[in-house]
Structures are given as C-alpha cells and as structure tokens.
C-alpha cells in the first residue's frame, strides 16, 4: 500500500522525483533493484563496483539515494562509502548486503551509512529506505 502512495506522490509531483545509484556487482541484483526503483518512479543508474560509483560522482552526477552492496571486486562497499563521504557526498547511502547485522557489519555502518538492509531487497525494505531519503531531503 505504501509503495502505491509513494508512486502516486511522485506521479502527481507532490513528492519530488528522486534519483538513485545502484552499486552492485551481481547482475541478478542489479536487474531486480533497477526494476524495484523504476516501479516506484525513481530514475536510477547501475554501476558494478565501488570504484565505478566514485567515478560517476567525479563526473559530476549526484543522487538522492545510493544502494551500496558490501562485497564487490575492485573496491568494496566499505571503501566506496568512506571515499564518497570524504568527497563530501551527502546522499542517503543505504548498505544492502546478504550478510546480516550479526556478521559484524559495524565497519560498513561506520564508513558512513545512513541505513542498512539485509538482502534480498523487498518492496517493503525499499520503501523504508525511501522514507529516510525523504526525511533527509526535508
């Protein structure tokens, strides 16, 4: 129900159109997360690792939300989050990982996350993240 409220809000212009960056090396997750966001009217881009996330920001792009995976080749989610915060990026960064909070996600959170959700990402989990983005923007 909440996702319908959000969708209609975006469609009517009551809720400002959000943008998101998906940072994940897994093609299945990239496809699902892209569709989840698209269904909620959120323009989004996909990159395959932390370094590509940094590069996209260095090219001048900015996003309301970054969905950051933890385990990725080249540059993982912890390092990418730290670097983005050091660059002054204030977007809402939500860590999404198949590892649970009991698996010592502390380092990931301390790198600068605003939220953490255990995969698989569902509509309900995404709506919860988006509420944080809206609060952050307000």
């Amino acid at each position, binding site marked *: 129900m909440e996702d319908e409220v959000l969708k209609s809000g975006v469609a009517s212009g009551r809720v400002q159109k959000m943008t998101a960056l998906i940072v994940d*090396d*897994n*093609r*299945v*997750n990239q*496809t*699902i997360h892209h*569709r*989840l966001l698209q*269904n909620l009217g959120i323009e989004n881009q996909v990159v395959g690792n932390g370094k590509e996330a940094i590069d996209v920001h260095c090219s001048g792009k900015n996003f309301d939300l970054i969905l950051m995976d933890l*385990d990725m080749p080249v540059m993982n989610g912890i390092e990418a989050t730290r670097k983005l915060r050091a660059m002054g990026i204030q977007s809402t960064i939500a860590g999404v990982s*198949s590892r649970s909070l009991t698996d010592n996600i502390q380092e990931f959170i301390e790198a600068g996350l605003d939220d953490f959700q255990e*995969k*698989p*990402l*569902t*509509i309900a989990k995404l709506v919860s993240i988006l509420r944080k983005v809206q609060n952050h923007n307000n």
Partner: protein
Amino acid sequence: MLGLGADRLRADMNRLLALLFHQGVLDEQFLQLQQLQDESSPNFVSEVVNIYFHESEKLLRNLRALLLDTELSDYKKMGIHLNQLMGSSSSIGAKRVRNVCVAFRAASEQNNRAGCLRALELLEHEYCYLKNKLHELFQIEQQRALSAGIRYPMQN
C-alpha cells in the same frame, strides 16, 4: 473454449508453484519478483531468472574447476563464487539452492575438500531441479498467454 484452456493452464501453474513452495524449492522472494511484473514488463520474471541461470552456470563451472584442481584448491575464491551464488539465489527465492550454498561455504571455510565435493554434487542436483521446474513453469505461462490471446516474445 480458449478461456477454459487459459483457466486450466493457470490452475496448472498455481499447482506447480504450490508444489515448489511446499518442497522449499522457492520462497516468498519469488512472489516479490512476480509483483514486479506488469504490462510494461510482462516477461520480467523469466528475464531475471534467465540471467540467474546464465550467471549460476558460470559460477558452478568455476566451482567445479577450483575443486578438481588437484594441486591447490583455492578456498578463498570458492567463497567468493559461493557468496555470489547465494546472493542471486536469495534474490530470486531459490531457497534450497541457497541453503546448499551455505553448507558448501561452511565446508570451504574449513578447507574440507571432501565436504566441498559432496556439497558441489548436491548443489548441481538442486540447481538442475530448480531449472527444470522453472522452465516448466514458464512454458505453462507461455501456453496460457497464447491461449488467452496475449502475444509474448518466445523465451529460449
């Protein structure tokens, strides 16, 4: 006549899905995928599952190659491949495949080659079963769509 055929096929689909849920082959995450399918993306589930099959088969080949390397089994690399397979299996609701990956990963963390070999055999078996059943599901869905007069592109 056409309507009755589509209804019968829908019933077949629901029965197969119920069986797969009952067997623990699929979990509620598969329903989440179905919720993302609509008129603007009518083949979303089969598209994602085909990506899953393609990626999983690469990972399974890599795991087999790593284990059959008699000189040195790279357990760290195995762990990386297993994390990938676990992640994507969770994301499509492939519960039994995911659970075997967990057991496989535990064996690889103990450098237990025999345990890993057993787990790999079981993983390949579970994966094949899942693939066959999902292919069956998508075939019924195709037939139902044709029967109901809806045109979908054919899936390989």
